[in-house]
């Protein structure tokens, strides 16, 4: 049980890098970018093929990130230049990537059994158990990326990207080409997703054509969980840095929940349904709650108005 939990934590952190990517498009740009499923697998495939080809595992992961950025650029190109709606542009790229990924690997599955990965190097170097090594590598990468994103979104270009998701008309009126900012955000986002795919591939020691399926839902679920946790914590977790951290923590919690329900005997194949339900509920609850509040306040106003109403009636 403990070992499974440790595994879940390490998986959660490594997938958390992908969640940061989804955070950029979903939360900052206000786009649900479905490229993610494809670019995650792309990162994994590129990384696996390179590692098998004898490339340094760190270089392979960087290449996975670059590949993800290219995938993001394709979606960005379709969306900004040809004005295809973002969701559809993402789906097109995702579908196309499935074939691309198969071409890259030449088969549907590439094992890395006897090859060095950054995780095996870390275990060899420190003598730590592999799960702990994975957690350490994951935390280091996550911290670097969170700091990097915090810096980037504080710069002039980064501010313009954030504002693009907020109010496109205003950003254009202030002289920023929103096509460029969207492109930057999509490339950055999918770059992180590809990076995460590469890390997962090296940690699980294989890449699989289906490894990205449902990644977007995992990303959204993790963001939602992170937000709820952020709201439950006292103090100001609205600051940008803590929102990013919350997204990674949300990912860890997601994988812990997953490990627990699997331990309790749930079929692994049902996990996608559970994820979808979590996200759907998280999106439904605020809407339902608001409607309920409106109805309640109307009912209250009726109640407070009715005694006067009856006297007026009676007086007549």
């Amino acid at each position, binding site marked *: 049980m403990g070992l499974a939990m440790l595994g879940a934590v390490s998986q959660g952190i490594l997938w958390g890098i992908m969640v940061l990517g989804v955070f950029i498009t979903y939360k900052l740009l206000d786009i649900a970018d479905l490229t993610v499923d494809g670019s995650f697998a792309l990162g994994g495939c590129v990384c696996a093929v390179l590692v098998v080809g004898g490339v340094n595992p760190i270089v392979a992961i960087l290449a996975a990130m670059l590949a993800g950025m290219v995938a993001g650029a394709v979606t960005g190109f379709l969306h900004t230049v040809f004005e295809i709606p973002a969701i559809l542009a993402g789906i097109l790229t995702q579908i196309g990537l499935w074939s691309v990924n198969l071409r890259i690997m030449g088969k549907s599955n590439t094992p890395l059994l006897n090859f060095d990965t950054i995780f095996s190097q870390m275990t060899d170097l420190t003598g730590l158990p592999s799960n702990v090594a994975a957690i350490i590598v994951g935390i280091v990468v996550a911290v670097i990326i969170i700091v990097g994103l915090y810096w980037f979104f*504080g*710069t002039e270009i980064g501010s313009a990207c954030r*504002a693009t998701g*907020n*109010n496109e*008309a205003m950003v*254009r009126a*202030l002289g*920023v080409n929103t096509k460029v900012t969207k492109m930057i955000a999509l490339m950055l986002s999918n770059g992180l997703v590809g990076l995460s795919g590469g890390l997962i591939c090296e940690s699980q020691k294989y890449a699989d054509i289906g490894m990205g399926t449902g990644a977007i839902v995992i990303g959204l679920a993790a963001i939602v969980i992170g937000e709820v946790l952020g709201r439950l914590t006292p103090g100001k977790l609205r600051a940008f840095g803590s929102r990013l951290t919350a997204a990674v923590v949300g990912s860890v919690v997601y994988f812990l929940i997953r490990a627990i329900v699997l331990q309790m005997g749930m079929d692994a194949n049902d996990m996608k349904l559970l994820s979808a339900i979590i996200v759907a509920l998280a999106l439904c609850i605020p809407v339902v709650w608001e409607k309920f509040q409106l109805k309640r306040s109307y009912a209250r106003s009726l109640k407070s108005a009715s005694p006067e109403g009856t006297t007026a009636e009676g007086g007549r």
Partner: protein
Amino acid sequence: MLTLSHVSKTFNAGTINEKRALVDCNLHLAPGDFVTVIGGNGAGKSTLMNMVAGVYPIDAGTITLDGINISQLSEPARAKYLGRVFQDPMMGTAADMQIIENLAMAKRRGRTRTLAWGVTRSEKEEYAERLHELGLGLEKRLTTKVGLLSGGQRQALTLLMATLTKPKLLLLDEHTAALDPKTAAKVLDLTEKIVAEHQLTTLMVTHNMNDAIRLGNRLIMMHEGRVIYDIAGDEKRSLTVKDLLQKFEEVSGGELANDRMLLS
């Protein structure tokens, strides 16, 4: 400063919804002109603003600004020269960002964005000072998210943002129409003050005929995509709402005013 010559724009050309929004429109603004624009619904006032700002491409004609032909420039490219305030108070600011972040983005209008910090420490004082001039107490709330401000406060902030880097031309598209009368008056006072202080060439669309007469040194009236009446100087100062209504009937053969214009 601004010259439109033979500018035309038709929306949905060739369909049942065809709308000739600007028809061979000519207009010249001298430097320092403060021109108010009035006209009925669909007269082409907003289209005029959008064409100058580059929101949509024009079909024909040329637009020059301070000797630069901007007819084919994209909206962000033109932004370098233009300050804009919109009718909708939500449109001019980014709600999820702080007041200071909004101002810093406006300060960088027309400059190439780099990887330098989006807001530098030295800017803070300048913004606090400029916000103080608005007299709304916003200088104490620099890190407040703009979404928490009222419509009037947001519109005043947008006005400040539009003029933070001096624009060659200030475009005000019914920027007080969505505000309550008291707030609208306040924002208009600020407009007058800022325009006078920085001697801005200004084009202001309004539905309010009294405002159109009271503000600025020149007034134009639009009808069916053309400028049908153009009056400036002493003649404009002695103008009354009644004159305007009469003038409109004369030129167009119809009624100018709708209820909204008469009541405001």
